[in-house]
């Protein structure tokens, strides 16, 4: 499907928002979450740029599955490191191992369901962390109410990931055309929710 001017504008806006977030960073946080957030927003920035340059065909590359794992893993790592001090090391180990296992299972041809299982577990844990933790922090008063927007961003990116994963698995929830039509807008909304949410932090 050809990329339209509107798609390009939406993706460019996504890129600008992500660039802004990478450039301004988040005040008063440790080095590791800063790196984690930079990586997460960096992948969003590159996703926007590469889709503009290469078109939607870029989504057919097997590398996309690996790269799209980086966003939830890095953002959730940053959140856990900042807000769940007791689980820092455990989650860091999970993020690194999870990423490595996904790289391996996506690089080595396998006929069983292990690659899908690994992807579901890693994405599931990381996605639920980004979705639930900000809501929890906002509703218990440990963060500003608008920090819940990060959770909304997590839900949106989870939705995008789900649509693309099922599409790539050959069992699409929506048609390819519909998914590609809403993807640029979804990416922009996701990034905007993250940026607004983190600015509250």
């Amino acid at each position, binding site marked *: 499907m050809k990329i339209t001017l509107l798609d390009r504008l939406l993706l460019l806006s996504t890129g600008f928002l992500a*660039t802004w977030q990478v450039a301004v960073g988040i005040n008063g946080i440790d080095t590791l979450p800063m790196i984690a957030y930079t990586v997460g927003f*960096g992948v969003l920035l590159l996703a926007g740029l590469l889709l503009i*340059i290469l078109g939607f065909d870029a989504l057919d590359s097997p*590398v996309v599955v690996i790269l799209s794992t980086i966003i939830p893993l890095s953002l959730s790592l940053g959140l856990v490191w900042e807000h769940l001090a007791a689980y820092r090391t455990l989650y860091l180990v999970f993020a690194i191992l999870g990423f490595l296992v996904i790289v391996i299972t996506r690089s080595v041809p396998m006929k069983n369901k292990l690659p899908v299982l690994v992807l579901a577990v890693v994405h599931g844990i990381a996605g639920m962390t980004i979705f639930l933790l900000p809501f929890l922090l906002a509703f218990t008063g440990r963060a500003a109410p608008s920090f819940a927007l990060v959770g909304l961003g997590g839900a949106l990116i989870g939705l995008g990931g789900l649509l693309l994963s099922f599409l790539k698995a050959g069992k699409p929830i929506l048609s390819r055309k519909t998914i590609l039509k809403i993807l640029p807008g979804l990416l922009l909304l996701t990034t905007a929710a993250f940026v607004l949410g983190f600015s509250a932090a």
Partner: protein
Amino acid sequence: MRTIIRKFRLYWPLTKSLQTGLLLSTGLAGYMSARCPVMHWYDFLGLGFSLFLAIAGSTILNMWYDRDIDAVMNRTHHRPLADGRVTPPEALRLGVVISVLGVGLAVAMSPLYGLIVFAGLFFDVVVYTLWLKRRTCWSIVWGGISGGMPILAGRAFGTGHIDGIGILLALAVLFWIPTHILTFAMRYFDDYQAAKIPTFPSAYGLQVTRLTIAVSSVVAALSISAAGILIGMQWGFVRVLAVLSAGLMLLAAATVFRPTERVNFGLFKYASLFMLSAMILLSI
């Protein structure tokens, strides 16, 4: 007035405005890297004007000399010189006048700055175009050196001398140029073959060319990031530069391990965007 507008429209494509604009942005960024936040507008405008004239002049001279090649290649046969809309003597006169004006203004502004601008023009027109382009595919190294001169000149104009950062910035452009030129050489392989111009793909094959692009992209990204840190760029901008560099390396790796026409030309476009973004980041 109509004649002037008609001539301007005819001459403008001879300057390869996008390429000239990109090189001009490197020169301005080189200056800003030395002078930011204090900047003198008359120096800045003089720098921009002299660099534009020198780069555009050398490009016109390049196009004048290569008109026979342009006429053979599908991609370039419609250029004003190749299709006869501009006569060779007219283009030569234009190229010489604009080049002399550009270098002359540069020398008047600062002898060191003028010398570097002249070196860029000399390497591009004499060494690259007249001497090496039709003889060896390694001519791109000299094309790269001349491409690195605007940023070095801008930096030297800002600081008053040639420093390590300026050389690092020039190196970044030098190593960025293969990414730019070689992806083009692969895309228009048949055109270059028809014109009998030696290129990396024709001399060493596509795989070696892709590897060369990947290595030079990595070196360009590292050089510009190192220069940014040494200049004292804000950490936020360093982070953005690191992300953009990662994108360049990712695409360069993709051209080696999963080469397709789309990825190859995508790298070409991304490399231009990367350079422009890096120049903006160096300037603010």
